[in-house]
């Protein structure tokens, strides 16, 4: 392709590309808005921080902490 053809092609691409981007993202806005209307409102509870029960750390924690508390207790002579 010579430079003229290239410029013409890229002019086309500018139009097509920005067109596609705007069409798709505007449709996305529409869909999101629609979905947010259709979906029943949820309460923003966010609940208590659910701890992942699969981690083996917790028992270790507790062991270490118990040891620490025990030591502290002893050091206080109680």
């Amino acid at each position, binding site marked *: 392709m010579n430079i003229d053809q290239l*410029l013409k092609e*890229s002019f086309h*691409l500018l139009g097509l*590309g920005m067109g*596609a*981007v705007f069409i*798709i*993202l505007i449709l996305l806005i529409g869909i999101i808005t629609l979905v947010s209307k259709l979906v029943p409102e*949820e309460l923003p509870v966010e609940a208590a921080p659910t701890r992942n029960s699969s981690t083996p750390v917790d028992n270790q924690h507790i062991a270490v902490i118990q040891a620490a508390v025990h030591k502290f207790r002893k050091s206080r002579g109680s």
Partner: protein
Amino acid sequence: MEQGLLQLWASTGLANFTPGQVVMIAAGALLIYLAIAKGFEPLLLIPIGFGGVLANIPVADIAGPDGLLGILYHSGIESGVFPLLIFMGVGAMTDFGPLLARPSLIILGAAAQFGIFFTLFGAVAMNLIPGMEFSLADAAAIAIIGGADGPTAIYVASRLAPDLLGAIAVAAYSYMALVPIIQPPIMKLLTTEKERQTKMTQLRHVGKLERILFPLTLLLLTILLLPTATPLVGMLCFGNLLKECGVVDRLSNTAKNELINIVTIFLGLAVGSKLAADKFLTTETIGILLLGMVAFSIGTAAGVIMGKIMYRVTGGAVNPLIGAAGVSAVPMAARVANKVGLDANAHNFLLMHAMGPNVAGVIGSAVAAGVLLAIVG
């Protein structure tokens, strides 16, 4: 003995260096320096810079088809696998909540893609300069730098212009790192003090079901209208679905941690293989660096201008600064918008408001990539 010494000498780097290799090793070291000392996207630029050094070692041929970098390049980038896996990890990390809370701001992420297509135009026009020779595919690959999104740029470049991939990746990540320097003057130039002081109302709460449906509807829309964008958009949506569905946390955690880390190391080294002197040290590279800067600037300007339009249309409910976040460069550009907003009004926190356009910019760039791949590829 003498023969052995000669053989050994003949196999030293000193006896085999080309000037280009010396320059490129220095360039690799510079990237590493910028990454460590200046904080330039270190996760990518350290592996890329180091890969660039390794690729330019004479004799060893580490970037050749049987060398480590060549193997990584062939199996991970030529195939498109690495950028797509990174996109999956990005999806597993991304919170689309702010985008869902105020979807109208997505339009800012669309406007900022103007930087891509204007740069395409510019790249083609550069052919008028003697010594520059960019095909339409080259120009499209360069233009995608304006998407301000690393994996998208690497994916498109690997498909349209593999020889330029090194320069394109370096430009993309460098300018992303420079966003705090490139964007503010443009943002201040195009907005008034009053506009920049605009406060925005708090975002609504977004429920779990909306979050789960989003990646699925986004993918569906892309399938219907632009299937060439579906590898990128699809893996982004897949990662995000793993995150939001809440029943496969062990997969989403792996996708956004160990897997993306492993792929980042490999991708960086493999991109570095394209910093071999004979491919990188060309006048085209200078053109790419210039055009990349233009792309970022135009994208930023287009986003801000669209922000100003929304400011008018909404009667001052939208701060135009967040338009600049539409280029993506997640989350840097959103932080820059927040920073410039704080400069204008110390009680003006724009970060969460800018995150919507910011992640919309990722989608916008992927859509733009799909158009380029559909028409040019």
